[in-house]
């Protein structure tokens, strides 16, 4: 981990985002440092995916201050955030079904030679990147429409890693993967963290988070509901933050609401 | 068809004649010109065949049709071009391939070999005379509405004639097509514009427009109808004239035109001179001294139906005097009182 005195890789303050009358994010703040994995947890609809999209510039925030390595920045456009060094794997990890794997990986940042696509180089780089990831993709010239769901998921991850980002946003990246693949992916996250990347990881699975995350930020109904150190906080406390058991005079029933817990 | 099958190889009299007509909105082309030309050619040359195409007002279609005919190896083309100058290139190509082109009804640019049509000045004069005869002694100070299709705005002889007689063209309405709908909507606008009582006559560019004009006047409850004139002597127009709703139309005896065209085309196909057939010559922007036949149109009113369209076999009495018009026919003396 980096020293606490260095400015965080990315710091958000007072982020608001509404879709019509739905307040998806209200006054959210978050800090992510280099060499750190921050998990974001929260119930369905808590705004986790929206947070990722705001940071990636895909759904710009309505209000909020962003600092990148201490410097104020504007995260209003996807290609702008990519240039900063932010990359994301979205929950729906959508790809262009009519392009091949290489085309999808390099979409928006094609390698050109003399103004023309350099398919050779792109193919080689795709090949070597995919070989380092937990799911095998035999043919990088296959249209992605012919891939299985774990392959699709991993192509999305590869796409994010391609630009060698400094901050990686992973929105439920273990979907559709089997146990061994999940384990490999988490190994990869740790490796990236050790290489000095900042990682924001969204997951419902406490086990995954315990394994790789340093801190957990909890969102509840679009608002911050605490940041916890994974190693020192009892998980019951995190779960109450997620389910909101702390912010109400709890009823008989809600006392029982813990997710996958006793 | 340089060396194609039709021209040189076959018997000299077995010609293939291409007939290209421009449209089908006006009924004359399909109802008269085409059958008449086919008839006249058959009558003069039993072995000849006619290859026919109608361009439906599409320049490109006509171009392709003529190209197809050249590919097939026809010997002569009778061409009524969609527009005056759209077939110039094709005509040049045909001539280069040794296929003579006879311009029919409309003078076509390019090296054409002959031309047959009605005298357009005479048509214009007949239109003017028709309007004036409709107005009778009210011509002086009369307000005439002119309803036209998409024509190029050249001087029309009737304009001067009306002016001379003291009639005023109080409005000229141009429509995008020669159709009854346009006649209707243009006249509706004219009525709203000028007031229903200020229309003393309507000069319609052709019979299709005139039909719409009459509908519009009737819908506007203008009674009695002002004199309406048209052109082409289409069957509905002849009926309207019998019924007294339309005053006159310009009658062009298509039979004569078809005869002349057949004669000229066969002569051209046989490589003979047109001198014996042609009655004069015309010039175009691209060719001079084209041998031509210019026929005289006739005015058609209720008084001369029998000696024009009926005598020439264009329409029969039965076609004109359908039950609805029976009475009118009796009144006009076309048929005797019903037995």
């Amino acid at each position: 981990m980096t020293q606490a005195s260095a400015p965080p890789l990315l710091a958000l303050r007072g982020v608001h985002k509404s879709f019509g009358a739905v307040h998806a994010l209200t006054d959210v703040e978050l800090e992510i440092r280099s060499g750190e994995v921050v998990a974001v947890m929260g119930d369905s609809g808590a705004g986790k995916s929206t947070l990722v999209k705001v940071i990636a510039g895909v759904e710009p925030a309505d209000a909020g201050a962003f600092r990148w390595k201490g410097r104020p920045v504007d995260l209003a456009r996807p290609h702008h955030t990519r240039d900063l060094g932010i990359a994301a794997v979205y929950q729906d990890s959508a790809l262009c079904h009519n392009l091949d794997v290489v085309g999808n990986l390099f979409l928006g940042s094609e390698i050109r030679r003399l103004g023309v696509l350099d398919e050779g180089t792109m193919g080689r780089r795709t090949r070597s990147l995919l070989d380092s990831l937990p799911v095998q993709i035999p043919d990088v010239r296959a249209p992605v429409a012919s891939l299985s769901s774990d392959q699709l998921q991993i192509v999305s991850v590869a796409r994010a890693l391609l630009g060698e980002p400094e901050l990686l946003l992973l929105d439920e990246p273990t979907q559709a993967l089997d146990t061994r693949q999940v384990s490999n992916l988490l190994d990869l996250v740790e490796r990236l963290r050790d290489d000095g990347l900042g990682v924001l990881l969204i997951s419902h699975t406490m086990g995954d988070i315990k394994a790789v995350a340093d801190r957990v930020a909890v969102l509840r109904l679009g608002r911050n509901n605490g940041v916890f150190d994974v190693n020192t906080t009892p998980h019951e406390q995190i779960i109450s933050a997620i389910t909101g058991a702390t912010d109400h005079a709890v009823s008989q029933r809600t006392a029982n609401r813990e997710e996958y817990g006793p | 068809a340089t060396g194609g099958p039709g021209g040189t190889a076959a018997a000299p009299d077995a010609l293939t004649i291409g007939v290209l007509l421009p449209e089908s909105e006006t009924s004359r082309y399909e109802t008269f010109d085409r059958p008449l030309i086919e008839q006249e050619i058959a009558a003069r040359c039993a072995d000849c065949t006619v290859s026919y195409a109608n361009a439906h007002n599409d320049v490109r279609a006509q171009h392709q049709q003529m190209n197809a005919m050249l590919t097939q190896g026809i010997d002569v083309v009778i061409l009524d071009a969609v527009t005056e100058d759209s077939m110039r290139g094709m005509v040049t190509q045909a001539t280069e391939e040794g296929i003579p082109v006879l311009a029919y009804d409309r003078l076509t640019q390019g090296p054409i070999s002959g031309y047959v049509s009605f005298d357009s000045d005479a048509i214009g004069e007949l239109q003017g005379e028709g309007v004036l005869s409709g107005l009778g002694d009210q011509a002086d100070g009369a307000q005439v509405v002119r309803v036209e299709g998409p024509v190029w705005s050249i001087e029309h002889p009737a304009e001067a004639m009306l002016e001379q007689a003291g009639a005023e063209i109080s409005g000229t309405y141009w429509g995008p097509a020669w159709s009854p709908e346009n006649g209707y909507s243009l006249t509706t606008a004219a009525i709203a514009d000028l007031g229903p009582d200020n229309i003393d006559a309507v000069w319609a560019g052709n019979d299709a427009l005139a039909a719409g004009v009459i509908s519009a006047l009737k819908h506007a409850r203008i009674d009695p109808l002002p004199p309406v004139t048209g052109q082409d002597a289409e069957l509905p127009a002849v009926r309207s004239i019998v019924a007294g709703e339309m005053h006159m139309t310009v009658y062009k005896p298509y039979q004569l035109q078809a005869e002349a065209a057949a004669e000229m085309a066969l002569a051209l196909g046989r490589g003979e001179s047109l001198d014996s057939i042609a009655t004069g010559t015309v010039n175009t922007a691209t060719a001079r001294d084209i041998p031509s036949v210019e026929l005289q149109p006739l005015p058609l009113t209720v008084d001369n139906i029998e000696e024009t369209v009926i005598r020439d076999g264009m329409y029969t009495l039965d076609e004109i005097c359908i039950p609805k018009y029976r009475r009118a026919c009796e009144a006009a003396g076309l048929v005797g009182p019903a037995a």
Partner: protein
Amino acid sequence: MRQLRAQGVRGYLAAWRRRQLTEGLGPAPAVLALLLIWTVFQILDSNFLSPRNLSNLSVDIVGLGLIATGLVFVLLLGEIDLSVGAASGLSAALFAVLNVRHGMSEPLAVLCAVAAACAAGALHGYIFARLGVPAFAVTLAAALAWNGLMAALLGGSGTLSFDDEGLVAKLTSHHFGHPAAAYSLAALATGLYFLAARRRSRAQRASGTQSSSVGEIAARTAALGLIAFAAAAVLNQYQGLPLAFLLFLLIVAGLDYVLRRTAYGRQVYALGGSVEVARRAGLNVAAVRVSVFAVSGTLAALGGLFLASRTSTVGLSSAPVILLISAIAAAVIGGTSLFGGRGRTWSALLGILVIQSIASGMALLGIPAAIQLVITAGVLLIAVIADSLARHARLTHTPGADQDRYPSGAGGRLGSGTQ
């Protein structure tokens, strides 16, 4: 707790805004446009608002208005029917050929022509609903085919006239000359409106919802009555109530009733809102789609007969594209959305009044036909831009409406193409 009866102006505005959200832009812009157009043309040409011209207008709108009414159904699905112009021409031609050439009686020929167009519409609907071909592609091809078929039917002559005193000709030429006719229609319309409004208000009260007060209903009824009686008075000044206009009103009102008060109409709206929701609710999506295209074809046929009726002729020359564009423009101007689910048949009436007023005014002013085309196109463009912007406003100001339009909210694993 059961109901929030916000009273007075604020409540009224809230209700209006709510209605705007469900029903798109609604008729307000069209009404304003109409007032503006009438004022401008009346200033430019004092004959514009003459009883004669207004009476003519009330007949002239019918043909195109019926086509537009059929299009409203298709637009409610969020689809388009580009074949309506051609279908209207085809059925008019079919009528004329059957009646004139084959001597079929007029009513029978009308029936055949309308049935053929209905079948053609159902065919478009089938290809769209069952084979998955985009509606614009089916109907574009159909437009060309029906056009060709019409030409083939009319054959050489190109135009065909039918009896100008017959049934079809009467459709536009007959007027109910007695003043009582127009006035009683006005009275009837006003009365029915009042009853319907009271009924709706009662139903709202029954479900514990804010309902219109009696005063409000009375005021609205009075306004409608004023317009209705003024129109009746104007029509009576010329030739009385035109049959065509009466039929048009009846058809529009009848179909509005079908759309708003029957289960079938509810299904049409539901499909325009969300095909998937409708499917999950067990609706027969394909059947509704086919039926809607059949309705569109049928109304196009009726419209074609009214258009032909004015001149008692059917000709190749009338350009189906202009009919098509005017009809789309009418529906959209009147407040029916291109994006489905929002609109009423009345919008066709209102929109066609706007379109035809412009056409009539331009004709009076002697504006060339070419320029008229450009202006009609401009009107359509303005209407669709307004509709699109209104929709955008709806999407960004209401929670998650049409969320699927912003595919980031959708969970498709592989991208989401627009089309």
